């Protein structure tokens, strides 16, 4: 994707909305537009500007005088010519990285005679079509795993419908990322590492450099020993936990203790797997085979990790950014 590294990028403003992943998804998509009247042409214009991979216009009509008033993508010189071709040429001008194609054919004919035609597309946009044809088209698209978007407009009203069997999104951008520091259940190496530190040590320099995560791991252990293996849950207990940390702090310049106290909430609010995620893990589609889409393969892999390692694990390979010097766990 040479455009990505271009500093003076025409996609700059939209990259700031959907990032690289979104842009890649756009650029890998092959779309098909059925009927390039004003509705379809406008829709396609926006996709082309955004950098869609390809668009194929299917329309067997010719440009007529009455089209000139309401479709920006046909002009006087194209009267009598194929509308699909005219609109296609115009759209191609908008963005030369898009593959703009056309087929002078009626959408209904293709639906009836050559349904496999649609299997090459990621998305089909059907505009101003009758219900009967749409029902057939919908069945075709479902069978072939193609997304279908239906649009109709009349004067000042219109409607859009999406028909989609399943839509999988792997990339998520959570607003609040909570890094799991594995404070309650440190894995073996982390536990060994933690054991190497001694919070009772005399040397003040070493004392104030014990990482805050280690302080919390130890505090957790100590708490468990005196509280029947449970974690602080009531606000009284939480305050008590923090006080225990405070009591070990030897001076104002011990930032590690300050940070430990501020981060103490991580001990009792460690992230767990949400019920929605659990539902996905339990879905039968997670029993994958050779034909399974990437999404389900990744779900299956996640399932293995979750079941084998720990039910409260969300892997955090960003551990090292939170606690500077610890070795990567995996």
């Amino acid at each position, binding site marked *: 994707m040479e455009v990505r*590294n271009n*500093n*003076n990028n*025409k996609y*700059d*403003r939209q990259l*700031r*909305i959907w990032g690289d992943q979104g842009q890649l998804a756009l650029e890998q998509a092959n779309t098909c537009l059925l009927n390039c009247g004003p509705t379809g042409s406008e829709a396609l214009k926006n996709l082309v*500007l955004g950098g869609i991979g390809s668009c194929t216009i299917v329309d067997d009509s010719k440009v007529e005088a009455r089209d000139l008033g309401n479709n920006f993508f046909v002009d006087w010189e194209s009267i009598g010519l194929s509308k699909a071709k005219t609109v296609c040429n115009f759209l191609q001008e908008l963005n030369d990285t898009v593959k703009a194609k056309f087929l002078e054919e009626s959408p209904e004919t293709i639906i009836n005679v050559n349904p496999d035609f649609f299997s090459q597309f990621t998305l089909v946009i059907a505009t101003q079509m009758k219900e009967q044809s749409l029902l057939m088209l919908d069945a075709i698209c479902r069978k072939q795993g193609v997304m279908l978007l239906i649009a109709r407009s009349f004067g000042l009203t219109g409607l859009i419908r999406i028909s989609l069997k399943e839509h999988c999104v792997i990339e998520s951008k959570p607003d609040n990322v909570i890094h799991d520091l594995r404070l309650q259940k440190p894995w073996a190496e982390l536990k060994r590492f933690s054991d190497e530190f001694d919070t009772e040590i005399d040397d003040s320099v070493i004392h104030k450099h014990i990482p805050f995560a280690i302080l919390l791991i130890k505090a957790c252990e100590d708490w468990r020993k005196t509280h029947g293996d449970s974690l602080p849950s009531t606000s009284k207990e939480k305050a008590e936990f923090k006080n225990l940390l405070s009591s070990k702090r030897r001076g104002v310049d011990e930032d590690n203790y300050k940070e430990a106290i501020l981060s103490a909430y991580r001990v009792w609010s460690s992230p767990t797997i949400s019920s929605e995620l659990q539902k996905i893990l339990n879905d039968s589609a997670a029993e994958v085979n050779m034909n399974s889409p990437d999404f389900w393969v990744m779900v299956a892999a996640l399932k293995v990790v979750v079941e084998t390692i720990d039910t409260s694990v969300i892997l955090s390979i960003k551990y090292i950014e939170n606690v500077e010097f610890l070795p990567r766990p995996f």
Partner: protein
Amino acid sequence: MLSQKAKVLMVGAGGIGCELLKTLALTGFKDIHLIDLDTIEVSNLNRQFLFRKQHVGQSKAKVARDAVLKFKPDIKIEAHHANVKNSDFDVEFFKQFNVVLNGLDNVDARRHVNRLCLAAGVPLVESGSTGYLGQVTVHVKDQTECYECQTKELPKTYPVCTITNTPSKPVHCIVWAKDLLFARLFGDRNQSSDLIVHTNDRTSSAATADTDFFNIKDGETPESYACRVFDGVFGDNIEVALRNEETWKSRKRPRPLYICEVYSDAKKPRIDGSCNSPDGNDKHTASAARILGLSNPQEVWTVRDSANVFLKALELLLNTRQKDIGSLVFDKDDQLAMEFVTAAANLRSSCFDIPMQSLFEAKGIAGNIVHAIATTNAIISGLIVLEAIKLLMGNLDDCRTTYCLEYPRRKMLLMPAELSAPKSSCYVCSQSTLLLEVNTTMTRLREVVEKIVRGQLSVNSPMISQGPCLIYETGDDLEEDMVTQYNQNLEKFLDSLPAPIVDGSILSIEDFQQEFTCHLQIKHREIFDEEKEPDNMVLSGKLSTTRDQALPGSVQLTAVADNVSIHAVDDDDEVILIDEVAKQDLKRKVLDEESVIVCGKRQRTEVS
């Protein structure tokens, strides 16, 4: 047909403008004037579809007109490549239109157009968009609120002390790098600098306290200069700041960073004084990062990378832009400047344990870039035309404010709200009096003119008088001795003016072009809070523009143009809450987005 007879003025030929011009043409409008001062940039091409690659650099208004005429040769479009604030566009100019349609990206111009429309008695359809969000509304004199009846939050500014001493977010470091360091090194040196950190104990301060610190010494090579500056701002300055114990009592202490630490085990990038960069000196392509092998703008650099870029970019700027040094103004599209600012911001961030940013992200922050796509603008333009038609038909009752949301709210993606009546307290359309608290014995007229009259009141060509006495005015046709008198007045303290301004005085402020008048009552006050009232002036009364009072003083930088200063920035996205029912939902949703103003909340701003 209604549309065929109407004469329409479009202000702005950018994101909204292109879509709007197309929609107007297709709807049968035949007489259109279009004003836009901008030229076309590459980043416009993902949505401003009337423009092509080959048009980059040309006037938006003119190219837009040409593109539409190709498809609709029988309509009349007059394109003005000019600033709408230009005196040519006076009340008489505005009076010729049946309706004015705004597709602007900054508050200042919108206020100006608002006042002209009020003066001319022409209805105004206002609009704005940011990413997936947008809105359209209608302003009709005496019937609805004017644009300024509602509080508009000023663009986000940051306290001086946060920028210079206690940054905690990436944006603080970027602002520092852009408006302090870059400005000090390459801009006007006579501007006083807050770059210098002082301790309470005045006997010890940073080396940078020396006013000549940033000047290249005789015989100093670019390399040693760059290293000296590096150590000064990232090392020395921080050391000195650390000595202010009070500051760090409840904050994480920063760590100084010196060149020798960064390169303890490696070589510095070669700085040889020659610039054989193949890109030549084109400011859009000359790049330190590329020379150093950092070709992906979305990658976050390491501290070492940032130091490399800092030194290299500094060298390149010194060597290739000699004639600009001393007057260089930061431009986010100036590749070297942007790299330098990113590197400097990252280095500072690393001292303060703030996450570093990629070039791409830093550019967005430094340039106040707002994300934008084609579809929102297409929707907004449709809504604008619908409202315009209602106005032309005389159906004001049918006019609405319409919000375009990202996700349906109560099953609505386009949420309408009824228009409100004019506010009697609006000093623009209802002429109420404002109060200015100021120290009349120690404040010069110039400060009042800059900060209050032009600044907060957004008056373009002010005429200030007290009773029958003219104190100050602007204009091309003034006599020389008047100009001299006015210039002298600017430098005088308020109470020393020929017509002294003292406690209780009432000033009239007028702008003929805007046909705007307001009255300012003066109240003398001695003490001002340095943090909360850094201007040493407080404007109040029923203001339609207020600063968030909780925000301490802002870094005041008098930049040349809106899109350069850090606080007078363009914005594209006011969401005005007027429907009680929609209010809570909208507020919540909008806060989730964190990208739109809800009166009093944070704002995203744009330079397009």
